[in-house]
Structure formats: C-alpha cells, structure tokens
C-alpha cells in the first residue's frame, strides 16, 4: 500500500507501523519461547530442567531404549491414524450430503 505514490495507510488506528511490528515480534516470542526452552533442556546432560549442566543426547538414547515409551509412541500413532481415517470418511460423506442436497 502506498508504494505506488498513492496515499500512505500506516499502522492500526493511531498505532504506528513499528509498534505493530514490535508487538508481533513479542507475540511470536511468547508463542515459541516455552517450546524452545523444552527443546534446549532435552539436550541437558543432567535430569534438571532448571540448571544447564552441559550438552548431551543421552535422553534421546534412553528414550529409544525405553520399551514403555516406544509402546506409547506406537499407540499414539495407531490412534492418530485411525481417528484421521474415520473422521475423513465420515466427514467427506457428510460434506457431500450437505453440499449436494
């Protein structure tokens, strides 16, 4: 908007563009910070989620060795795929009925 010599429409009401941009950056930081923190601490060498003791991939190794975790993963995938399949079939049929009749 405005690049082609027309009037310039800036901001949201009285809020200038840079403030809007800064606001958006802060919201994205808010959305991603907790996930990044968890990701970071998944590489922590100690069990702590508070203190950084060094980089390690040992928890990923433990995860792959743990039978319970692997079984849970398997169940999650089976449930997820089944739910998607059933919802797709029923949803498609219903959408067809709603749009055609």
């Amino acid at each position, binding site marked *: 908007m405005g690049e082609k010599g027309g009037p310039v*429409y800036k901001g*949201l*009401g*009285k809020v200038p563009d840079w403030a*809007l*941009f800064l*606001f958006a950056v802060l919201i994205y930081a808010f959305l991603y910070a907790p996930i990044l923190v968890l990701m970071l601490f998944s590489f922590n060498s100690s069990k702590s989620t508070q203190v950084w003791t060094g980089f390690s991939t040992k928890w990923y190794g433990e995860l792959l060795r743990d039978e319970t975790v692997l079984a849970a993963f398997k169940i999650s995938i089976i449930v997820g795929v089944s739910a998607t399949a059933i919802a797709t079939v*029923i949803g498609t*049929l219903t959408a067809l*009925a709603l749009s055609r009749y």
Partner: protein
Amino acid sequence: MGERTGRGWTLGLGGLLTPVTIWLGLFFLVPLLLILAYSFGTSGVYGGITLGFNPGNYLKVFDPLYLEIIVRTLVIAVTNTLLCLLLGYPLAYFIVFKGGSWKNILILLVMVPFWTSLLLRAYAWVVILSGNGIANRTLQFLGITDEPITLIFTPQAVTMGMVYSYLPFMVLPLYAALEKFDISLKEAAQDLGASRWHTFWRVTFPLSMPGVIAGSILVFIPSAGEFVIPDLLGGSRIVMTGNLIRTQFLQARDWAFGSALSVMLAILLLGAIMFYVRKVGAEKLEGV
C-alpha cells in the same frame, strides 16, 4: 446424480448421512442423554448410581463452595477471551496488512506451536515458572527481585497458560475475516476525510466482526471447560469447574453430582454464547 427428487435422491442422501448419524448418535447423543439421566440419579456410597428423579444434585451446585468455582471459571474464561482478542487482533492485523509476501509464513508460524501437544506446552510453563525456574532466575539476575517469588499456582499463571494455548484459535478466524477485507474501503474512508483512528473503528473493525465473534466463541467454550491448564499451573489452589467435574467422576465417585455440574456448565455456556451473539450482533448492525 441428475435426479433432484425421487427414490434415488432419498437413497443417496440417506446413504451419505447414515455414518455421521450413527456416529454422532452413539458417541455424542447417547452419552449426552446418559449424563442428563445421571444428573437426576442418586450416587451410591461406594460409587455406582441409581437412576430416578433426584433434583438434589442441582441444588448442591448452588452451594457457595461450588458456586465460587463456577464464577471463577467464568471469570477466567472471559478474561482469557478478552486477552486473546486484545493480543490476537493486532497480530492478525499485522499479518494481513503488513505481512506482505511473508503473510503465509507468518500465519503458519501462529499454527505451528499448536501442533505440539497441549500437555507439553503446559509443562513447558511449569518448567519456566517453577520456584527455581528460568523466569525467577531472570528476575533475580536483572535485580528485580532478591529471592524466588511465587509465579506458579496463581490465577495469573493459569490465565497466562490459557492465553498461550488458545491464542491461535483467536488469530485464525480474525485472519480469515481481515483477509477478505477490501482495502479500497479503507482508502475510500480516508479519501472522504476519516482519520486513521476513525477508519479503523468505523470501517475495518465492524467488517471484521464475524472473525471476532467466531474467535471469541472458539476460545471461550473450551477455556470454560479447561482442566489440564489449571491442574498444572494452578495446582490445588485454582480449581475450575472442569477440575471439579473430573474429581467428582474419578475420585469422589459421585457421578450424579458430576453430571449435574456438567449439565449446568453446558447450560451456562449456551446462555453466555446466545447473550454474546445477540448483544454483539445487534451492535454490529447498528454500526453499519
């Protein structure tokens, strides 16, 4: 295909709608009726339930102890909805009107956190807000506080966790509504002498009202029934109706009271939504 009436038409419609009817009937309507029947039953001492007509469960809902929890639930849900709107609107506005060629990536970035488990995201906040967590360390490092302060297990922690979880539900409908907005309307308003402030409140905002309504409902309904976030971030101190219902079913084994609470919550939500749509809908029409 071409038939508009007759046997083939009926058969086709029936065939297409049979799966959804059976599914919703079995897994939505039957459980709902069951809850309604249970809510008038009497719970046995050792769990179990005797059906009948016992309005006592509903009277129990009005016990000040439980009323307080219901009022708190509504206050948290309304606060959450307003905060999501307050934070989500400028963001959606920024993405649509200032995003340029980044628009699709920016809206995708709003959705990505939502792909990770809700439980995981709530736990992340437990880690951050706990006594010795990153938030407290940062506050002490900056010299704002001298010792760890209580951040978790407060109403603010619960509200923040809810805003965090439900923000995408608000941004997406707002994005969809603003996306459809015809920029030339804004130009017309300003050509006719409206200030930017005026243009926003009299043109852009009223036209985005469908997004505001859809987003508010999408945030309000699930946040009023929320029990995971208050459980993790509120501990035993911030009990919401969802937690109370779960306790009644799983720990107290008072299915009758749990059902009555569920029915009351559903009625309250339905009432709130109808009131909201009527109120906001009417104002929207006046604004146009």
